[in-house]
């Protein structure tokens, strides 16, 4: 009787997850969707806490402790975190979920009764959960480190493909060997755990920071699969369905992102940007032309149409509000002002949209890649704010370039291009940008936020 009630409530929770995800994919209903999914999660947790069990001491004290501390940390971090640091936060949260799947499978091995046959579907599933959870854990931590900036791309492993291949084969072979034994040897499990954790690190480390959005999305689907496998171990439908939903959504997002960069997933994983070498390096003979604030301000004020191309530099400088100020100032002067958003600008898909939304930039002013490219030819001034690889013409012209084939924003078609940039350092993919040396390009060096506020001032004075 109680089992039936539990399963019915689980079914409602599962429906809430699915409806929530569905609503999350439309702008109008997204907020409701998130709340519905959260309600489903709370329901599932409460039912799991209350369902009577055949054996066990319940240990509610331990559960309450973990939940209270976890909730407190989670909510505090979510409230305090800056909007610009959102991608690394999602990556970190994702790693913690993976760690939980990993811990569950360790306990499953620990609990395995002596004498029971080892070679069973149950045990194979547990090995998978251990492997997937561990990769998701350490891989997400590396992705977090790369986005946060304390792990640099220059940290290169020797022969990463070989290391990964060997590690993977050893993990599979050792797992199979462990299952063949008459008794479970816990030492082997610990060794496999260690190797899987290392694999997570060596899997993500060679992938360049420019590809991190794809990696986070992929690791997100790994965590989902880990949760689903754990659900299979316990015969628990909520875990299975919730996990698979995330696994599927993560995979779809990953594929969408790879399409935006015109690369295959295999290409991202095996031949990461930093691993594939620098392409054609510039000799440094060419000279960039610097712009002055006064000239740029006048150019902007008397333009018909201005398009802003934001990138990670805008996020770092927290310049989204200042951009919006410039937008308002110029619109008062009758200038058409729009934003061109490249699908992979920033460190996450939609990263720029979130930042601009925070600054109250109206929705219809954001152009996607195709629409923006139709408009550049009739644009007077393009302001590139801390974007680099997404406007690099080498993606179209230079077959040797690591980003060759990625669709870019064709800003060089505009009458004038002003690039706001801190220095001449190459972008995240580590390659030089020919755009900066172009005929119509002027550089405005400095922090994006202070440069923009100076521009607003100059426009008002001009």
């Amino acid at each position, binding site marked *: 009787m109680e089992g039936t009630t539990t399963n019915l409530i689980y079914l409602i929770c599962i429906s809430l997850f699915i409806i929530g995800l569905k609503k999350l994919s439309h702008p109008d209903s997204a907020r409701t969707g998130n709340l519905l999914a959260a309600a489903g999660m709370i329901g599932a947790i409460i039912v799991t806490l209350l369902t009577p069990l055949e054996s066990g001491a319940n240990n509610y004290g331990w559960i309450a402790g973990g939940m209270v501390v976890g909730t407190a940390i989670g909510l505090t971090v979510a409230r305090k975190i800056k909007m610009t640091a959102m991608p690394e936060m999602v990556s970190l949260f994702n790693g913690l979920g993976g760690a939980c799947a990993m811990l569950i499978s360790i306990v499953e091995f620990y609990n395995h009764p002596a004498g029971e046959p080892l070679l069973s579907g149950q045990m194979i599933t547990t090995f998978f959960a251990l492997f997937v959870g561990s990769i998701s854990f350490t891989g997400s931590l590396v992705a977090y480190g790369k986005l946060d900036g304390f792990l640099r791309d220059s940290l290169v492993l020797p022969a990463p493909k070989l290391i990964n291949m060997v590690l993977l084969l050893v993990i599979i072979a050792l797992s199979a060997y462990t299952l063949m034994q008459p008794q479970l040897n816990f030492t082997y499990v610990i060794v496999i755990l260690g190797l899987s954790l290392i694999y997570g690190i060596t899997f993500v480390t060679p992938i360049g920071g420019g590809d991190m959005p794809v990696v986070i999305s992929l690791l997100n689907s790994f965590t989902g699969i880990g949760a689903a496998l754990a659900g299979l171990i316990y015969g628990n439908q909520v875990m299975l369905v919730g996990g*698979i939903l995330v696994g599927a959504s993560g995979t779809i997002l990953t594929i969408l992102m790879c399409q935006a960069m015109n690369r295959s997933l295999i290409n991202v994983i095996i031949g990461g940007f930093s691993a594939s070498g620098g392409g054609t390096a510039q000799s440094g003979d060419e000279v960039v032309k610097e712009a002055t604030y006064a000239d740029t301000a006048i150019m902007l004020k008397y333009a018909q149409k201005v398009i802003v191309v934001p990138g990670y530099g805008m996020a770092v400088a927290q310049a989204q509000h200042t951009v919006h100020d410039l937008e308002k100032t110029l619109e008062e002067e009758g200038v058409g002002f729009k934003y061109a958003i490249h699908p992979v600008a920033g460190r996450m898909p939609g990263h720029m949209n979130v930042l601009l939304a925070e600054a109250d930039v109206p929705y219809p002013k954001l152009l996607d890649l195709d629409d923006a490219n139709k408009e550049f030819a009739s644009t007077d001034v393009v302001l590139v704010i801390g974007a680099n690889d997404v406007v690099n013409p080498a993606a179209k012209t230079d077959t040797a370039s690591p980003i060759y084939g990625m669709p870019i924003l064709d800003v060089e078609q505009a009458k004038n291009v002003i690039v706001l940039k801190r220095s001449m350092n190459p972008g995240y993919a580590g390659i030089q940008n020919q755009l900066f040396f172009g005929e119509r390009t002027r550089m405005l060096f400095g922090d994006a936020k202070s440069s923009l506020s100076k521009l607003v001032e100059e426009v008002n004075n001009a």
Partner: protein
Amino acid sequence: MELLLNFISENLTMLYILVFIIFLGTEVISNVPTVLHTPLMSGANAISGVVIIGAIILIRQASADDYPILILGFFGILLAMINVAGGFAVTNRMLEMFKKKKK
């Protein structure tokens, strides 16, 4: 081989659910505007914290003095709970900004 077949027949319903949900999941999620990619990823990430259910079951099934399980399970719940609470809260914060702007 027989082992594998046994496992499949024991979990046949689960496998049916698994396959259908894969189709459902891809169907529900395709056709998402780029604007919502980050919130969607964050929301999906919060849902993956459903793994906490496993940690709860595992602690409840343990006896009161089985400290290795209790400690591992405690950390499992702690970490997954950060994922769940933080994930939904962060997603909500992102989406609130979209709402404010719509006026």
